[in-house]
């Protein structure tokens, strides 16, 4: 229990550190957010007025303090009842008041950033889940097949091809998949998000496959190495000698050992992807958090950038903690 408290306390420190550094960087980057909000051709007088409307004429420390004060605070249950809370996300209500999360209002979109993030986090979640699942499925399958016939042509072929695919940057894999499956064969949409659930699913295939192919090589290696070692263990031989089918032996005895490293990697990957797979989302124009953070950074949209940093760092840190504790629970030898 005290370990959990300790870890959580450090997690807060890490998130605070990440967000504070991001705030400083965002403030120090050259380029005028008000100019970006007003447009490249807006006149200086209009830019100056918009700057003060956005609150950018206040000193950085005051804005930093206000950011943390507003990030989590208590407010009315109905955010529309008070214009001061118009950009808040109402999380949990107690009586007439509620806990609010406030990322402010986007300079570019003139929308509460909380609403924008909420609309997109589901898409990023879908992509992360699909990507990690495909990585696991392809990686474990390839690793198993390779390990069952060590040294065979299949083994060498699988290992070489999985590391070859893993050598390509995601944008290259994405570009080729797009070209072959969407451009030439027209089986799948090139990019975008679609309008209906079915279209969302079709649009999800290519980016998920890109992430899957990219990450599968790692799991192939873990599973193959682990299975190869444990397949020579006595109990496997005994089980085989007793006449148990190979498949059952593998699943029952052999794969168990590989669970912890696989789970660790998958959990950390998932955390990283929840921050938004920036390149993949850009290539496929998948409107998730990665895409949002790129456009936020390019347009100097401070509230959007900071919201993305908060979500990313919380996701990464939380996945770290969860992976640690799940692994500890699964593996009695650890501590």
């Amino acid at each position, binding site marked *: 229990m005290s370990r959990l408290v300790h870890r959580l306390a*450090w997690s807060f*420190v*890490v*998130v605070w*550190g*990440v967000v504070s*550094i*991001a705030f400083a*960087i*965002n403030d*120090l*980057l*050259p380029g005028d957010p008000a100019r970006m909000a007003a447009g490249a051709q807006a006149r200086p007088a209009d830019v100056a007025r918009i700057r003060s409307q956005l609150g950018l004429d206040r000193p950085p420390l005051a804005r930093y303090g206000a950011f943390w004060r507003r990030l989590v605070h208590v407010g009315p249950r109905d955010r529309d009842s008070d214009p001061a809370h118009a950009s808040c996300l109402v999380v949990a209500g107690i009586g007439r008041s509620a806990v609010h999360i406030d990322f402010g209002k986007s300079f570019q979109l003139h929308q509460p950033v909380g609403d924008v993030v909420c609309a997109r986090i589901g898409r990023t979640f879908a992509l992360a889940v699909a990507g990690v699942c495909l990585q696991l499925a392809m990686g474990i399958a390839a690793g198993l097949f390779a390990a069952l016939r060590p040294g065979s042509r299949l083994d060498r072929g699988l290992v*070489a091809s999985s*590391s*070859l695919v*893993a*050598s*390509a*940057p995601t*944008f*290259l894999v994405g*570009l*080729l998949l797009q*070209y072959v499956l969407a*451009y030439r064969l027209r089986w799948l949409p090139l990019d975008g998000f679609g309008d209906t659930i079915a279209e969302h699913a079709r649009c999800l295939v290519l980016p998920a496959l890109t992430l899957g192919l990219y990450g599968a090589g790692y799991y192939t290696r873990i599973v193959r190495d682990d299975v190869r070692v444990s397949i020579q263990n006595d109990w496997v031989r005994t089980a085989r000698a007793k006449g148990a089918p190979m498949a059952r032996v593998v699943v029952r005895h052999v794969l168990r050992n590989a669970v912890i490293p696989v789970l660790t990697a998958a959990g950390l990957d998932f955390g990283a992807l929840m*921050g938004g797979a*920036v*390149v993949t989302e*850009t290539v496929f124009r998948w409107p998730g958090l990665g895409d949002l*953070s*790129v456009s936020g*950074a390019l347009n100097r949209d401070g509230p959007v*950038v900071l919201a*993305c*940093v908060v979500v*990313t*760092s919380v996701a*990464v*840190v939380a996945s*770290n903690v969860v992976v640690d504790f799940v692994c500890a629970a699964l593996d009695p030898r650890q501590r």
Partner: protein
Amino acid sequence: MTGVLAVGAVAAFAVLGPLAAGHDPLASDFVNGMAPDGLPVGPSARFLLGTDRLFRDVFARLAVAGRLSLWIALSATAIATCIGAVVGIAAGWLEGRRAFLPWPAAAGLCGALACLALGRPGLACVALVAAAIGWRWSRPRGLPVNLDAILMRLVDILLAFPFLLLVMAIGTSVGHTSAVTVFLTLGATGWLGIARILRAKTMQVRTLEYIDAARALGRPTLGILVSHVLPNVAGPLIVTATMLVGQMIVADSVLSYLGVGLSPPTPTWGRMLLEGQDALATSPWLVAAPGAAIVLSVWGFTMLGEGLRDALDPHDA
């Protein structure tokens, strides 16, 4: 073996390619390089890999880009390996131990941080020097610090930090994007994995008996680290570093692809991909050539690293 061959092939191409190209990689050829419909010409005897959107020879650009990419990747790996090794060994050695930072040094460090936060880097340097002097001077007790915890939280923070924002920040603070800033950026962000691996390895190594013996004999810590710990962790260090070269090639191309890498017209594989992707349908060689180069070299370094691992540490295989 495959790794050695692939890396050798890429290196030979990068070294000899520019000499063999026979075209200026930066010069547009509007006369011969442009097809009648205004698009770049495809692979031919004159242009081995065709021309690009500005009607320049793709082969020459690919070779020059190879030189640059390899150079950047190797330098970045060297930096990342050094930082990662120092941080990893220090953290692993000090894990679970409490070091005492002399009070003057602690005060100097805090002052340096405060000066940095207030935007006075000059004063921060003075404070750092003061901290170093304070470190040498007084040796009684001081501020108890868990350096391992601090370093690992720093790693956590950097791991949780959005790469793009970090790169933009470093790029802007340095001002001018040259090959040097690119590899400094990659080196400064790429050491996290190495640090974690070396920390774990050092924690294993420090329990070895002869290291205990050396400590009992009163040898200075730095000496033990260099002459006993480092040789023991060198194997994984070399393997990880070799594979890191491949990752650096990818990271370099991602930077170029996101538009924060080297400025044109200097060719890099990532920029060639970026400039070629719109023409994938009509001029596929513009994507195929740099794409194949990236995949081959990254794969080569990965295979080389695995080969090294098998050679250095047969138990792991």
